[in-house]
């Protein structure tokens, strides 16, 4: 593994790595030059062949997503760069925007060219003000150098890129919530079907891709699909930015091939747990993923399939480490509170259920718990997000996957650390 050389973050510690001259000096925009002479369908095929899967959380095949764009539609097509990174424990897109904005922009132009889009948006999280200012510069630089605008690099392809800042809602990272927000409406996710590739922004075919996904594209074009596929597991290959946070000595973003072992990541790259405390639990893919206990975490490879087998998911690869001192009930409340705060309020189970969870957990922590409460917590999570039975697919009950995103972690906390929840019950009541 030590032979792996970072792809996306290779130059991030170099001076002025965000500037166009620097990016050009390391071979930037050569992939774009190559692409502009290619047939768009061949690009889509190349991306399909690379098995690149979305880095935003859902892990859907990027090439396949592009392939859903109707060929016969005379409506304009849109590409949206989802830079609304808001999953707790995830901070990789921010790094890419700060350090390699031209890499992302090149990826955007490649994707836009492949789907036949002439207006593309960057939907950037409102709190990322610094990144927003930087991207404005990046785009200005690109326009000045004929990388954006009319007849890009002398070809007959034209593309405009517009930055749109979000107003601070987690749910606007969900692609249809994002589209509503971009259209100037309330960020309420849409019913699917129709999927955005058929009817997205302004009812036109739209592709929403994550910053990291787009940043992979120049490399796939330059080095080929088979190179990309050779990194990590074949079904979900490529370099991946893992964000490690929580109880570790050296938190940060680490670029590793897909399928890296979680143990290595925590104890080698992230420097292990402070004061040599014991590992207790880990979120492997942002706060929406089910937590893994220390035992489970020790022998898991960070790969889409394997984590699903373990009853969790790779999600946004936001790894949050909890050591033995962490109170799991408090941690569960913290997560539940986040989701209650961010629930958009459209669907009944999510709107009412998330705050019910918070109220119950708060009551439990305050010492007013009742014996049946812990089973009820499980029932409520099931009622919000459905039974989690991966062999049968998930049984979500809401318009968007937010319901599952709260149910999975909360259920895993209660199931895997039931003893800690029981300890919060007043003793006399347990006996009674």
């Amino acid at each position, binding site marked *: 593994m030590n032979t792996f050389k970072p792809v996306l973050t290779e130059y991030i510690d170099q001076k002025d790595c965000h500037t166009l001259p620097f990016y050009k000096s390391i071979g930037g925009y050569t992939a774009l030059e190559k692409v502009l002479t290619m047939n768009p369908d061949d690009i889509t095929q190349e991306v399909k062949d690379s098995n690149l899967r979305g880095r935003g959380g859902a892990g859907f095949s990027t090439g396949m997503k592009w392939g859903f764009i109707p060929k016969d539609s005379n409506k304009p097509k849109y590409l949206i760069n989802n830079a609304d990174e808001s999953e707790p424990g995830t901070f990789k897109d921010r790094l890419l925007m700060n350090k390699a904005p031209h890499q992302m922009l090149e990826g955007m132009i490649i994707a836009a060219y492949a789907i036949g889009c002439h207006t593309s948006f960057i939907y950037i999280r409102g709190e990322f003000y610094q990144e927003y200012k930087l991207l404005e510069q990046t785009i200005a630089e690109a326009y000045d150098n004929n990388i954006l605008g009319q007849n890009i690099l002398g070809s007959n392809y034209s593309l405009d890129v517009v930055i749109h800042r979000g107003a601070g*809602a987690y749910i606007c990272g969900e692609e249809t919530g994002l589209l509503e927000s971009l259209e100037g409406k309330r960020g309420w996710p849409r019913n699917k079907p129709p999927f955005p590739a058929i009817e997205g922004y302004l009812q036109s075919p739209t592709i929403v891709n994550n910053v990291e996904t787009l940043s992979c594209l120049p490399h796939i074009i330059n080095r080929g699909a088979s190179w990309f596929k050779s990194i990590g597991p074949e079904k979900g290959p490529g370099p991946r930015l893992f964000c490690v946070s929580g109880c570790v000595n050296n938190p940060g973003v680490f670029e590793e091939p897909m399928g890296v072992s979680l143990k290595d990541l925590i104890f080698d790259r992230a420097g292990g747990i402070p004061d040599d405390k014991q590992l207790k639990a880990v979120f492997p893919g942002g706060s929406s993923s089910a937590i893994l206990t220390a035992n489970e975490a020790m022998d898991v490879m960070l790969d889409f399939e394997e984590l699903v087998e373990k009853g969790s998911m790779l999600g946004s690869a936001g790894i949050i480490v909890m050591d033995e001192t962490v109170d799991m009930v408090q941690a569960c409340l913290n997560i539940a509170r986040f989701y209650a705060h961010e629930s958009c309020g459209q669907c009944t*189970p*999510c709107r*009412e259920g998330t*705050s*019910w969870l918070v109220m*119950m957990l708060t009551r439990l922590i305050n010492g007013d718990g009742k014996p049946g409460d812990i089973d009820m917590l499980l029932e409520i999570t099931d*009622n919000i997000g459905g039974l989690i039975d991966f062999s049968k697919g998930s*049984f979500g009950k809401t318009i968007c996957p937010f319901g599952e995103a709260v149910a999975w972690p909360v259920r895993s906390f209660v199931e895997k650390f039931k003893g800690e929840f029981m300890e919060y019950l007043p003793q006399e009541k347990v006996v009674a």
Partner: protein
Amino acid sequence: MPLLKVDGKEFEVESGTTVLQVAEANGIEIPHYCYHPALEIVGSCRMCLVQVEGMPKLQVSCNTFVSDVSSDRKVDGKYDMVVHTQNDLVVQERKNILEFLLLNHPLDCPVCDQAGECYLQDYSFKFGNAHSRFEENKRVRPNEFLGSQIVINHNRCIMCSQCVRFTQEISGTSELFVEARGYNSKIAVLEDNPLDNLLAGNVADICPVGALLSTDYIHKNRIWNLKKQPSVCQDCSVGCNVDVFSQTDQILRLTARENLDVNGYFMCDIGRYGFHRYEEIDRVLQPMVRKGDSFESVDWETAIQKTVDLIKKNKSKAAGIVSPFHTNESNFLLGQIFKDVLGSLPPITGEEITYPSGFRISADRSPNTRGMNDICDRVVEDLASEIETQGIRTLFILDDGIDRKLDDKWKKIIGEMDSVIVLSYAMTDLAKLAHVVLPGHAPLEREGTVTNDKGRIQWLRPSLPVKVESKPDWEILMLVRNALDKKTEHFVELGEVMKKMGEKFENYGGITFFKVGDQGYSINGKIS
């Protein structure tokens, strides 16, 4: 056409129909809150979840469209979709959703106006749990005025967002919106843009729970005490279908009644609250005959005799004035008495408003201009000069009612008549000039047919009992007609008048109340 199986029953349906529509059309109840046939589908209440075979999740039936699938995907080799609305999974899911909806609901049914017609109440009884597992504090918020006549009780609101979509899609005024997020979300208006459009009252109608309330009806009565009479609004020529709710002799409220060919599911506030203007009027409840400057109450026999005497005195110079506020039957009968009915007084008009959804408030604020013109052989444009040219000295007038304000010109014309007989329900400007006042029925007491401006004949049904000595307008006219000419046919009921009218006017041929029904029918296409 796709073949659908719902709970074991087969239905062949149009492609693009939703499962909920199929179920509703076939008497299969699927509970729902956020779905309204006139509004955009949002699928957010999650109440209408059903199981569709082959899909991993339960599906919202309001947003599940039936379409042809390829033969290899058909279930049991023939069904395009197989749906279960009653199985354990669905039954349990309904309980779960209702539990969530009731968490913060105050359960104040005993003081809630919606009780008795509340879907939260009905579905809880039918599909919900008997008790609550919620032990936390409920969310409590004060009531707020959204507009001058609409109050919201936030605690009862289930966030179905029908009211928001109504103001966006039907009225196009977009006053309402959802404020804040998640647990804190609530229906709100901006201070400088309150919910005061002329369709505002509809939001109280469509609210499935007791959250949106009309200040006009709040805490007035209980719904089960009221008599509900389907009828037609009489405040403009659109003729919105309405339900009139009354107790003994008092109307409590009007709500819109569904008629897709006329008003859809809605009505305007002019019609909704219009009934109040009949509450404090100088009602005429006994026949009256002029004596000097005042009137004297008389019995019907005297009044009819006096009427006949006045008409006969100068028969050739007597004429009738019909009214677009009266039914086709009354106008027809007046035409039978005076072969040369002259016409009607100048039209009563207001602002014409058409909403983005196509909902319309007509400038013609009378319900039956079209019918009146259809039924009368000759309605002159300039009634005043016609009266002068013909030298008319006696007028029998169907009074337009309390909305009719007489200007000086008309006061002079009518005041100078030898004899004026007015059929009215109130001591209007016109009745004050009469020599005989015959007490008829007020608009929501009348029975008969009216024809709206699109040529749709609709059934006006009496919503209130007959008051004191007043008689139905058609009966009064018939009494006068019989007294004038003993040989004419005597009608004992309104149906016979309609039959006669149908014989005389081709467009109204074969008209009966049964044929008109509660949705009416269009005469368009039959008019030559």
